[in-house]
């Protein structure tokens, strides 16, 4: 270990701030983290800015403006490791719903004078623009997974964040399957674990906050939902939320649009 503390930077693009807030929500670990790293650039928490390069950059949010599309390259250049956090940074976020529509129409719905608004046609994940060392999923991310990622990068190992489905975690925590037992449509079979399989434990179907799991099969799940009487329109909406632009979910929602 070098004598100096590793430098941590937190960057924000288009987002709700919730994922970087997860770092401040680590109430029990925050001061310990601040002991282990130098918080060198974290606007939400400090007005002090330490110059780069940085050992680890956490990037929240998606790219939606020409300026941000440039800014991310500068951040990549000053970052040894770049980790994206949350559904906006990894999949474009809820604001990627514009990708399925004409953004000009969107601007005119919200703003009376669209000429003042500079925005790109699509909201895109960070990985579409620069090389990303690791992606942490979720809307919002799980703070325990965030601490795991920080710990892993500080110790030069790979983070342990399981890629399997929410179903596996339901079984682990002993939650009775809401889809089989109650006939509640659930995205659990195609959604990446990380939340702790929360929704089924609260008697509701998973709604896909953590995005598609590895090798997911949304088409098959759609078939089951249809048999349960879910309309094509509602299926499209189900796949088109916080991870709408993640490829497996995007393709499936488009299949239901036809």
């Amino acid at each position, binding site marked *: 270990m070098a004598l100096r503390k590793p430098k941590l930077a937190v960057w924000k693009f288009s987002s709700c701030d919730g994922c970087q807030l997860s770092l401040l929500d680590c109430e029990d670990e925050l001061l310990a983290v601040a002991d282990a790293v130098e918080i060198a650039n974290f606007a939400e928490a400090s007005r002090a800015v330490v110059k780069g390069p940085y050992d680890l950059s956490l990037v929240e949010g998606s790219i939606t403006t020409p300026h941000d599309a440039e800014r991310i390259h500068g951040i990549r250049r000053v970052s040894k490791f770049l980790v994206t956090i949350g559904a906006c940074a990894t999949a474009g976020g809820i604001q990627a719903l514009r990708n399925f529509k004409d953004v000009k129409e969107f601007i005119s719905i919200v703003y009376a004078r669209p000429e003042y608004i500079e925005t790109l046609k699509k909201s895109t994940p960070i990985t579409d623009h620069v090389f990303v060392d690791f992606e942490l999923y979720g809307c919002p991310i799980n703070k325990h997974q965030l601490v795991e990622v920080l710990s892993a990068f500080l110790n030069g190992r790979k983070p342990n964040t399981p890629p399997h489905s929410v179903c596996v975690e339901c079984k682990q925590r002993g939650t009775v399957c809401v889809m089989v037992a109650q006939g509640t449509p659930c995205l659990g079979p195609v959604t990446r674990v990380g939340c702790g399989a929360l929704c089924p434990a609260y008697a*509701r179907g998973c709604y896909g906050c953590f995005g598609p799991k590895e090798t997911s099969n949304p088409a098959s799940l759609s078939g089951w939902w249809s048999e349960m009487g879910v309309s094509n329109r509602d299926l499209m909406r189900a796949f088109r939320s916080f991870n709408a632009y993640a490829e497996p979910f995007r393709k499936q929602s488009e299949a239901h649009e036809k």
Partner: protein
Amino acid sequence: MKNSVIKVDYLARVEGEGALLVKIKGQQVADVKLRIFEPPRFFEAFLRGRKFNEAPDITARICGICPVAYQMSACHAIEDACGVKITGPIRELRRLIYCGEWIESHALHIYLLHAPDFLGYEDAVRMAKDHPEHVKRGLRLKKAGNEIVRLVGGREIHPINVRVGGFYRWPSKEEFSILAEELKWARDAALETVRWVARFSFPAIERDYEFVALQHRDEYPLNEGRLVSNKGLDIEVREYDQHFVEEQVAHSHALHSRLKERNAYFVGPQARYNLNFDKLSPVAQEAARSAGLSPVCRNPFQSILVRSVEMVYACDEGLRIIEQLELPVEPAVTVEPLVSTGYACTEAPRGILYHRYRLDDRGVILDAKIVPPTSQNLKTIEGDLEQFIQAHIGIQKEQLQWQCEQAVRNYDPCISCATHFLELQIEQQ
């Protein structure tokens, strides 16, 4: 001071992206602009075509700091459209989760974002080196608020247990009793916060504000009430659009709100406190008095003190709810769509949050309007800065800049909310 520019390119310790630009010509403030460059996210646009029961989960994503506020305004507006009024334990549990969000958000702002300004630290981590006991208390308070949100809502950020009509399931009685113990500690810690913050020195500034908040006959406002002000406004929430207007300005991605009749207004803890002091619990009223606060507080730098008093109230109210709560069988009432328009205003930690939805017969949202608290305060913040800088034009630029930032943070601005919308520059010519 000769002609100069104070420029803060990226305002720190606020939620979201904004900048401040102040131009000074000779001894006069020439221009103050709070620039919001947080990119727009078009929530109102993509809510069109979504189902009415999706609104709470979608709008929660406008803000990671106050998702409960969005869920509450969305649920109440949809229920208003569908002719449903929630009473009894569901109404009480909604107050409880909102108290949790107030505690979490107020503790975050008081301890991690605002107190460092008063004590001269760049951030709370640096402040913790000299004042560890205060920062640790703040973090535990924040955690107590988050525990309420987690217990009732399933998780702290973007809770999953809130739905149109109520909740998906009740938390268990045992879980509530563990929470009650921590809340008793939190109420004492909030009282200690009031005593600590009362010792800060507050720059003097007072303007003739119009404070706007909800007011309810029986309680300190959270989810329900009439919209009132100290200058005669007294309307139903559904009359909001007749009295308030949102305008687009070139320097900002956030729309600026104003009262049609009188212009700028002030929302948030101070507005609520000034208009509803008599509804605070006796413990919270006593805490305010002993800290030297009168029932009307006009100095925005004292917002940190008012926020601390509200934190006492939220702990107290949370305890009252937990002690009296009887949970029936059904955690939600059925809500059927109606061809109608629904309106709601609830008190987010930063002030009134207005939602309006128009629905068709299948419950599809035809149009949506959302006005977050921060965009309602922007004009008032710019006005404060102008007066503050004019009064302190001779002081050293670096100090002036820091105090300008502090003045912005008086309002705990949440820029992510306002673009659904901040940057600081002071320019001297």
